[in-house]
């Protein structure tokens, strides 16, 4: 099975974020990490390769710093990487990102393409589905399990409120992977060493320029959300807090 995993570099989960001067984006001086759903997608690809043999290729689009995500993926066991490298990719909408990826892989022949179900920064949950449509491939989203069948694959799709559904699909296909599908592995020291010799193909913006267009949507401004809730802070020592809280529970909320 030849599997492509699309990964995104996003600010670290608990990194303190500040808006830039123009309030058009965040300040870039933060720590970054691989988008967690994408890490689950990579893990799933590695497990499928362990079961069925094949190749796992990782791709990301972003500035030079995004290479870190690829290096970590290679250290975990991916075979090679593709880096659509340019600062401009940070501002691309999902449609353009998908177009750039499709252009970068046009000479490859993948059986499966995985993305995480959504990114922790934008949270759009679109890139994988758009990519499937651009490639003309079937797709399924929020996937919790993948099994190979004679006619393709059988996936377990997660629905709301604890419901699930199995879906039979032909290959090639695009799947967006849900967090918690598996347990993430750590890169081993040997893996990190081997990663140094694995190829990272750089793709410049100019190489995919003809495939993309202007963004079809625009972030006019970013801001700290206006709080509509009045929040009361309860302070003091733990025992003081406990007493104050019980007082609220009894007299204000009336649950005791």
């Amino acid at each position, binding site marked *: 099975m030849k599997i492509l995993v699309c990964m995104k570099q996003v600010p670290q989960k608990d990194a303190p974020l500040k808006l830039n001067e123009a309030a058009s984006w965040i300040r870039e001086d933060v720590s970054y990490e691989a988008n967690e759903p994408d890490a689950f997608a990579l893990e799933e690809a590695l497990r499928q390769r362990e079961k069925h043999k094949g190749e796992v290729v990782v791709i990301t689009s972003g500035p030079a710093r995004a290479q870190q995500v690829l290096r970590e993926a290679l250290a975990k066991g991916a075979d090679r990487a593709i880096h659509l490298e340019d600062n401009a990719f940070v501002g691309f909408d999902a449609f353009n990102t998908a177009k750039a990826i499709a252009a970068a892989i046009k000479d490859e022949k993948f059986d499966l393409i995985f993305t995480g179900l959504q990114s922790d920064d934008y949270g759009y949950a679109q890139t994988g589905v758009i990519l499937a449509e651009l490639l003309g491939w079937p797709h399924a989203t929020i996937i919790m399990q993948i099994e190979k069948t004679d006619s393709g694959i059988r996936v377990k799709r997660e629905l*709301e409120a604890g419901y699930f559904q199995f879906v039979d699909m032909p290959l090639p296909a695009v799947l967006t992977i849900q967090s918690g599908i598996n347990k993430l592995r750590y890169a081993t020291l040997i893996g990190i060493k081997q990663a140094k010799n694995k190829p990272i193909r750089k793709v410049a913006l100019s190489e995919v320029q003809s495939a993309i267009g202007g963004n079809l949507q625009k972030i*006019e401004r970013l801001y700290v959300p206006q709080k509509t809730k009045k929040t009361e802070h309860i302070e003091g020592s733990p025992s003081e807090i406990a007493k104050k809280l019980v007082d609220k529970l009894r007299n204000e909320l009336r649950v*005791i």
Partner: protein
Amino acid sequence: MPDTVLVVVEQREGKLNRVSWETIAAGQAISAATGWMLEAAVVGGSVSALAGEVAVKKIAKVYAVESAKLEPYTPDAFGAALKQFITTRQPKLVLMPHTYQVRDFVPKLATALGRTVISDCIGFKDENGKLLFTRPMFQGKFAADVSFNSEAPWFATFQNGAFRGDKAEAGASAAPVESVKVDIAEGVVRNQPQEVFKEAKQAVDLTQAEIIVSVGRGIKEQKNIELAKQLAEALGGDLAASRPICDSGWLPMDRQIGSSGQTVAPKLYLALGISGAIQHIVGMKGSRAIIAVNKDSEAPIFEIADYAIVGNLFDIVPPLIEEVKKAKAGG
């Protein structure tokens, strides 16, 4: 043709998804702000009865978009059907609820039309005739106002709870219902879905709980859940958790609160070590009172908390359990 807002409601197995009323309310609000006409569509095998249910709301018209190939749901069928319908009707704006099913097909539909979707919106603004859609970013730490930079049709999906379904205005009389048969050629539908099923036997229905004590990653280890369990017992409430706790198997899946789990609105929701990621918040923001304990003062959970305790839950919960027990014993 006048500019139209088209709300595509959601149904499964002959029942409307309740969140559809929220999208109708959103459509009515945008229609009022812009003067555009409001229409709705129900998509499925045989949905004229459901279209009739939607028609009692204040809407100009409801379409029953039908084909046998639309049952059961597949993204290929829904994409093809709505592409046909939208190409004919040419709405200016298409609204849908941000459900798992909508996420599965609306980016495909928009792409097939060469258009874009602003997804997971929590509101809209009309700034001098320019329509902006507000959505959370960075797990709720910031909000973004987003505009369309393309031709119509525009697509937007609204987050669960962004509008109130009970605010969807009723019409003076039932709106006309029009049946639209769509053609889906052989070979278009590539996925073969099986029956929908529930995995965990629903041992506990958290939607009925009056008090919920919920744990997130801040609980650090499985054995620490015992502390939260004791607090829940002292309060006479139920134990729940955010997704990562259930994914790790520390609590069963039927304890999960959030977009993949249960949506609750108890009298009291006590969030311990929960950061407040969007996927969790949508499942509990309707709670009457929210108390959050987290050592990160910037945690997004504090945006929606009525009472905030910035501190270490392991320091705070033990004395809290004692005080609750004392109070209940008549102290």
